């Protein structure tokens, strides 16, 4: 039973990490290596609004999400748009931006145990003899709600449909009058907001640590590769796969092996089916 509960929580956590990355990659084919940094950055921005400016918690959360979205969009608009389509340059540029943000935060003294966000609701509840605190339940709830919202968004709104069109076939989308550069900026903004949402939900469970930015990036990428780069449903499914695999290894083998699971999952996926569970378009392209 505890495997089921913790597995679900872990899986939703992974899905939250990965959705923003999957969204940006799906729409503009941009591997956003700065994803982990945006996650951590938004944590500190929230902390700043909350503690330095003394704003209301809800207000600072909303402001932080908007701020992170704007930062992501600006990064795209002013830097990444110029290297679009050049794979090597894209990778190096996003990687460098991510490093700059993380190491800049570390230099500015944002380290140690002092930076924490308060949980939304204190306390815990017991489900089947296992204590689960409300924050973790909220993570699962909001995570699920977010997936549903995303699904509705890409199905019933103009912007969402445009994004979906871009993801499916960029040239056809352009022919139908969708501004591909604008949509890529929007996607990057949304992706960053998703990273911020994940950060705000998950960071109250522990300290805000700069190093965990790298972990978030690794886990997000693992999930996206296993699920098939660019596929949201694949990413969610893969999050559950890896999430439960991690909890199972932690319970039966030892928690040291948790991170190894992600790498193994990637390697096995890449060998057996390099396009991932649901990546359809690039079966031939990515593997020789």
């Amino acid at each position, binding site marked *: 039973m505890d495997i089921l509960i913790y597995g679900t929580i872990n899986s939703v956590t992974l899905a939250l990490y990965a959705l923003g990355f999957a969204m940006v990659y799906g729409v503009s084919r941009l*591997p956003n*290596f700065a994803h982990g940094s945006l996650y951590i950055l938004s944590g500190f921005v929230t902390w700043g609004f909350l503690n330095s400016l003394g704003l209301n918690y809800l207000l600072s959360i909303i402001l932080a999400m908007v701020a992170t979205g704007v930062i992501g969009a600006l990064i795209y608009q002013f*830097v990444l748009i*110029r*290297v679009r389509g*050049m*794979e*090597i*340059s894209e*990778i*190096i*540029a996003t*990687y*460098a*931006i991510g*490093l*700059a943000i993380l*190491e*800049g935060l*570390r*230099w500015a003294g944002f380290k140690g145990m002092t930076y924490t966000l308060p949980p939304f609701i204190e306390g815990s509840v017991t489900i089947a003899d296992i204590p689960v605190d409300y924050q973790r339940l909220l993570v699962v709830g909001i995570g699920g709600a977010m997936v549903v919202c995303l699904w509705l968004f890409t199905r019933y709104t103009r912007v969402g449909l445009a994004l979906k069109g871009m993801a499916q076939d960029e040239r056809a989308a352009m022919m139908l009058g969708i501004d591909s550069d604008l949509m890529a900026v929007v996607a990057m903004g949304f992706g960053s907001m998703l990273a911020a949402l994940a950060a705000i939900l998950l960071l109250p469970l522990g300290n805000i640590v700069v190093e965990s930015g*790298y972990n978030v990036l*690794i886990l997000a*990428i693992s999930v996206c*590769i296993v699920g098939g*780069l660019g596929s949201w449903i694949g990413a969610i499914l893969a999050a559950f796969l890896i999430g439960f695999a991690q909890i199972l290894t932690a319970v039966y083998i030892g928690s*040291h*092996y948790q*991170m*190894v699971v992600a*790498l193994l999952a*990637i*390697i096995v996926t*890449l*060998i057996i089916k*390099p396009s991932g569970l649901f990546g359809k378009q690039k079966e031939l392209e*990515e*593997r*020789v």
Partner: protein
Amino acid sequence: MNTERRRERIDRGIKIRTDGIYAMMSWRELSYLSAPRLVLIAGLLILPFVMPGMYWQRVITITCIYALLALSFDFLAHFVGLVCLGGAFFVGTGGYMAAILNTSFGLPPLLTIPIATIIGGAICTLLLLPCLPLRGVYFAIVSLMYPLFAARVIEAFDILGGTDGILGIDGFSNSWIEQYFVIGATLLFLFGTRRLVNMDIGLVFRGVKDNDQAIKASGMDITRIKAMAVFIASAMGCLSGACLVHIYMWSGISQFALDFSILPIAATVIGGGGTLVGPIIGCLILVPISELLRDFGTLRIVFYSIILVGFIVFRSEGIMVFGQRKYHQFERWTKV
């Protein structure tokens, strides 16, 4: 009158290793061709003498170590098409290999370094083998993870000295041997890879990068060719790691740190990718600057990253390509 003018670039007709055959006419032309190479070789060989004090001599050694790494990145990325973001993995493997050979088997540095280079290269190639059928983003992502995971595994299982690392490794017997060993290795590998990419196998490597289906159609095994390339590149990385370990007389998790992945990439972008000399020039610029910035701690990484983004966005050709153009072509204004 409309006097619009444009700048015209004309090649100087003196070339070497090109499609045409040019007869060498004079000492002037010979020196025109060999001057840049000789300046580089002589400059690197003289550097230890002109550096004031031990500290800056050490900086030269570290520069050459980074130069080897940058060379291996450039070779893999621009001649084979594999963007390897995890150069630190090679450094760590080579470093730990040399450390184990030295402390457990008591071999002297002049033996451990070659052995670590070859065996380390083989180990890296074996570990990367499952990822070799991939290319582009996929390979970059997976190679980025290798050093992070290696550090995590060593930390978690407390093997190879755990977080303390392996202590008590022999250093080089004197600092001149140390410097000239590393400088010699850098020059050897620089001209070695230059020769390699101009040989037949180099053509195949570039074929793998540009059009792998064509290589496959010619009946060659792409994975085997990529494995060869990765072996060459990772051997260079392991060599630099092994030298590093013997210089610091210590081997630890920090050899898997991001510094060893990001600085060579930055140097390659700044120096000019695909030229093989460019990365070394990039290192000669970046590493001393980063030593000057040592007081700022991790701000150094921010600094490289910003330079890197600036160069990749606004000047992606790099210094070397720009310099080559200026050297081999002359420009003049002509009326349109």
